[in-house]
């Protein structure tokens, strides 16, 4: 049994609302920097909060870094599947 994209998105929406004070609805194609306007502090807060919530380790940087909300969901689903 795995997590659907919708499940993951819902969880990330809650995290973003709680940790980053971000109340608008997230769209899958929202870019973390360009659309959500996350700065360096917000990015690290999000990364740590998502890792802690799902009990996973997400890639640090480089080409695999998540650029959009959809990227982030996909990464989370991949890691959760691997560790379950």
């Amino acid at each position, binding site marked *: 049994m795995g997590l659907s994209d919708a499940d993951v998105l819902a969880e990330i929406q809650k995290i973003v609302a709680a*940790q980053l004070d971000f109340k608008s609805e997230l769209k899958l194609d929202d870019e*973390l*920097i*360009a659309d959500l*306007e*996350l*700065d*360096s*502090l917000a*990015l*690290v*807060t*999000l*990364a*740590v*909060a998502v890792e*802690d919530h799902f009990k996973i380790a997400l890639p*640090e*940087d*480089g080409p695999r*870094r*998540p650029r959009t909300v959809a990227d982030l969901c996909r990464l989370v689903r991949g890691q959760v599947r691997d560790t379950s």
Partner: protein
Amino acid sequence: MPPLRFDTVDTALRAAASWPDSGLTFVDLSERETSLEWAELYVRARRAAGVLRALGVRAGDRVGLVLPTSPGFMDAFFGTLLAGGTPTPLCPPVRWGQLREYHAVTARMLRTIGARLVLTDRRLHKVLGQTIESAGLDLTCHTADVLESERDGELDERARADQIGLIQFSSGSTTDAKAVALSHGQLMAQCAALTALMPAQDETTHVGASWLPLYHDMGLVGCLLTAVYYGHSRLVLIPPEHFAARPGLWLRAISRHQAVVAPAPNFAYGMCLKRVRDEEMVGVDLSCWRYALNGAETVSLDVMRRFGERFSRWGLSPNALMPVYGLAEAALAVTFSSSTEALLGIAVDPVTLATTGDVVPGRREVASVGPPVPGFEVEVRDEHGTVLTERRAGRIFVRGPSVMIGYYDDDEATTRALVDGWLDTGDLGFVADGQLYVTGRVKDLVVIRGANHTCQEFEECLEGIAGVRSGCAVALGYAPPGAEGEQLLILAERAPGRDPASDPALIEQIRAAVLGRTAIRPHTVHILRMRSLPRTSSGKVRRAEALRRFIEGELVIARQPLAEMG
């Protein structure tokens, strides 16, 4: 001047290793703790030194460290010292940020110090590899876990007091950071001063708690090296990224370990106010916290007072709130609040201060950062170098036993900064009743969360934007009412022929450009009519004046109905 108990960092470490129940405690996001006693740290460091020697590190070599707060950092840092080398901690990349700037900035730093090798961790290894390769640097990059190998024997070199013990990249600005070279003697002098200001109580362990990054002087020198210097000490360490996600971890750790000292920049106190929930504070007792130091960026009295008020509920004493002031070029602290007086502030008139430099009553409240640290002298001078009397603002100069050797590989900058042992801090301020008040920076840096950004760094992002008149945008730091510390303000003149109705779209473009390249989000962006920004006779924008006019409401922000002619 306080006497030195140790003349080098390694000597202090050997002494610390003899203390039982003393060392580091690492706290993770779930508040699980692992300890690393000084004795064990020393053993690991000797082993790491053996590995580093085998990897080619010779006496005097610089080793770049790009490591998170972790036992691996300690192996790398102290191992480098015991191999006779000079550790140079560097900032890791912004998590999930764009890497282009990071590669350029980091490569420049590694080239400046002529690093022998770089130590990093598994997660960052690939990124640092790219940094090195794309810059064509001739050095190798290793993960810190190789330092745990026992194959290469041990080393335990003894440094000389006049030898470089640390190179720290300072804030001239984040893009133009200079390599501050500090000797062992200078580092120990700073630790001696801090231990004199915060004396250990009787036979008890001196406990500190820090989430500060270890590539920054307040965390590295102020917390780590000072804890080693105390010897009979416990330093609780929280990685900065964990503090960012859960600021409450810090306050809870202070309580759990009954820490006496915990320093942080102003924005961190604001973060605690905003994000720590009462539920996280159940059972927390902050009455132990004698030294709630606030340094590394402008102190907001408003934030400190609100912090003191809210957390008094859990035992925090108002006398604990202590602004401090210092800079990497002096190893760390230059002034330190008096422990007998609570937060001091003077309300000055900003216009008079900006024009004549006189301190007269007004509405801008400036915090005292205290009298000079033992062994230090502070002078305020005008632009000709004449020493000014109290309540006259000017450039802050300092002299004392922890002032740097100089900037590594930049004699010209060193000569400009150090004259007759006096260090030009680049800051502006005044002295009143023997206490220092810092009012600004000579070079107009924008300090965001303790990092000194140049105005240019942000302005450059606007170059390619068609709607902004070329060369007619200015980035400024200001503290808007109600905000938690210094924020980024962008004022940009509209390009000729542009319809003011398109300003909202232009503002979004500006925001995206700045955020994308610097990972800093502008707080406020305003579009101005052409020729609104005040300039010098040679055409340069007068920043301080622009800021003053903005604050006073003298800049016309509203849209102009008339057509603009080039």
